């Protein structure tokens, strides 16, 4: 495991903690951004260059911008929440238990080398060409289904907006 991967992993976890620990919504968004960027670094480190870049362009560069847009409009005043509000009453402790179990499993798995050794991948694995070939030759049916799903969502949005006026 390279130093870059360790740093990116630590930053990703720190960002995740920041999302739920921060009292200011905009800081939560910034933390989420940190997590997304760290995940992109991890993707690129694993050889999935295209996924990593798309992660930055789509999630960090577009989706999160809309988050910033909405949150900075809704909480235009820079005031922290007065007390930590529990949005999921009663679920936090179970979340903590689940996280602890998962952590134990991961550590045990890591110690035991439960994962099979990485298969030797072909040259250019994870690059745009290989990604495109997998997407448009092997998995083209799933791709079309996903496109249909997105189209339904877009039509739904248009109908909802049109109904209001």
């Amino acid at each position, binding site marked *: 495991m390279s130093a870059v991967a360790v740093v990116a992993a630590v930053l990703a976890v720190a960002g995740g903690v920041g999302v739920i620990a921060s009292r200011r919504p905009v*800081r939560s968004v910034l933390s989420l951004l940190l997590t997304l960027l760290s995940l992109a670094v991890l993707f690129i480190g694993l050889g999935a260059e295209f996924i990593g870049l798309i992660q930055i362009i789509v999630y960090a560069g577009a989706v999160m911008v809309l988050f*910033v*847009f909405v949150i900075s409009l809704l909480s235009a005043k*820079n005031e922290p929440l007065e007390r930590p509000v529990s949005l999921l009453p009663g679920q936090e402790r179970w979340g903590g238990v689940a996280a602890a179990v998962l952590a134990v499993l991961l550590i045990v798995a890591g110690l035991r080398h439960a994962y099979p050794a990485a298969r030797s991948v072909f040259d250019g694995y994870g690059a745009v060409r290989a990604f495109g070939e997998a997407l448009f030759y092997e998995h083209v049916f799933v791709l079309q289904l996903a496109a249909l799903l997105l189209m339904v969502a877009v039509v739904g949005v248009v109908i909802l907006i049109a109904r209001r006026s």
Partner: protein
Amino acid sequence: MNDLWISLVQSLILIVALLTVFAGMTLVERKLLGYFHLRVGPTRTGPWGLAQPIADAIKAFVKEDVIPAGADKFVFRLAPVISVFTALAVWSVIPVGPPVEIGGRVIPLQVADPAGGALVALAFTSLHIYGVSLAGWASQSKYSLLGAMRAAAQLISYELSMAMSILGVFMLAGSLRLADIVAAQSDVAFIWLQPVGFLIFFIAGVAEVARMPFDLPEAETELVAGYSTEYSGMRFAMFMMAEYLGMMSVSAMVTLLYLKGWHGPAFLPPVAWFLVKVAALLFVFIWLRATFVRVRYDRLMDFGWKVMLPLSFLNLVVTAAGVALWG
């Protein structure tokens, strides 16, 4: 390890060069705007006003750095850093010329050469918006917030057309690596094969760096200075820096994607051709500023979504058909 050192030295040279060009460009822009307006521009600081950037830099450094009382101080300080960082980072993948051989080593004239170079440039461009919108929110001023809102909507809208128009180039070149894209243009520049894509990319580029006629996030006649209203001193200068670096990277990307990059008649070395083309595009940026008035906000959005985006889709389909039939 040696390669890492070479990259570090390259980054250092690149940053110093970019910031020097930025300083020079502020003067050139003021002089050119002066001539466009039948004025003379700065003249009092040295011959031809040459010391004006130095005077500006000293002014930015010694000016009082005001942070508004209600501001989110951390985000307020972070925003200009994000702006400058993303604007500089785009340049890490931009090749300024073919690889050169120094002392038996082949050294590429770019800091990093990933297979998805053009996508990396797009990725950093897409992150630039955080500097602007966070600055606007953290300032806790209505003008700043309005500027930030406009910036977020404008940049997202035009980024779409920008990405769509660049796809045509990818299809023609069959690669996302910027050096490959330049190599693919050794016969004919992509501007002749992709005239519509070129126009869309350049217009979207002007909108991405929020320059006249798309400078609504700043819009000094209505929003004081938009997202940067509450900034002063060096932090304000950092936003200026990001804007000029953005102009330079858009010009460099247009040069690489559509204007044959560093190819040109042999009487100039390749790097010089690259710089000449970038300089010519920067002149166009200033020319636009001197020529056009600011567009109205609703027209800006209409233009982005109803003209630019459909056109870029059409360009994509026509290019794909062309590549499939004759490629």
